[in-house]
């Protein structure tokens, strides 16, 4: 893992676009991209009344916890988690080695549909994240200065 991660405006646009496409195809409500540490990388869709940052942190926690559980029973990793509610549901899936995708959806669509398009989005997101993560630790633009 790199010490620092930079996201350029162009990469951000690509990440956002993939999430939007996923929402359109799957009819889901909200999509959130984050890393295993709970860092938010993109949020698309409906975000009123929800706090994406907190969701990201809790989702990362839930995922880490299940990963540890998986190890304990000798599984490599659980790649998909699904929380079923009465009206709102959450689909959580792994993206590459160190990121996660949270999809919130209602009864207007199905887990099957969400899973189908989450897989496609994950592949695309993973390849962009790989590019971001393999970049050398040098700011791609300009100097950053501490404020007094």
């Amino acid at each position: 893992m790199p010490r620092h991660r930079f996201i350029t405006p162009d990469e951000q646009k690509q990440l956002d676009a993939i999430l939007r496409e996923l929402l359109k195809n799957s009819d889901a409500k909200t999509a959130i991209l984050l890393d295993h540490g709970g860092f938010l990388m993109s949020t698309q869709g409906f975000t009123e009344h929800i706090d994406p940052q907190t969701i990201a942190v809790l989702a990362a926690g839930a995922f880490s916890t299940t990963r540890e559980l998986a190890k304990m029973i000798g599984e490599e990793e659980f790649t998909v988690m699904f929380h079923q509610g009465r009206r709102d549901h959450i689909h959580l899936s792994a993206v590459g080695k160190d990121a996660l995708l949270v999809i919130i959806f209602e009864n207007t669509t199905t887990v099957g549909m969400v899973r189908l398009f989450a897989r496609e989005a994950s592949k695309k997101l993973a390849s962009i994240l790989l590019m971001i993560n393999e970049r050398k630790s040098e700011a791609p633009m300009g100097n950053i200065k501490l404020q007094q």
Partner: protein
Amino acid sequence: MSTVNFATREITCKIVYYGPGLSGKTTNLLFIHKKVPAKHRSDMVSLATDGDRTLFFDFLPLVTNAVKGFSTKFQLYTVPGQVFYNATRKLVLQGVDGIVFVGDSAWNRMNDNHESFVNMKENLSEYGLIIEEVPYVLQFNKRDLPDAAPVEYMNHLLNREKQRVPHFESIAIRGVGVFETLNAISRMVLVKLISELSPKKE
């Protein structure tokens, strides 16, 4: 691992409050939450047991303008101190940028302080990190206790790595020393980040 987003012009860093159970980590965050105006922070999330003990972590996001041209976000986490929660403690350390080690000044907690510090180094090593490479400060909390151990002794016990680090005396329940500690660690994290980002002079 800090994230620098040039699209949203945001820098995000993760700071973890580590230390033995009941040393005052959650109290630090509660005080910060109380004093920082709402526009610079979000709600605090606590995953706690009924008895108020931290089960997984506390989480408090802050927004500052410490870096020119960027909004700088600090994500403060605490870990559960109890020995048997090591699995979750380790998870919280993932991607850490800076640590505040909160020690308990009570004489009878010196062993716990020491054990927790050793445990922190072990957990860091699981992520391939060594303590010398992670910015951290020590906070000796509960200085109000009548049986508080001398600062020299606590330094002798906890501040013995190759590089000595800043230490702060605090009374977290009254907020004494809380912001001094936070300012110091956030500055250290940013100074390190910036020095690593700046193009090296040949």
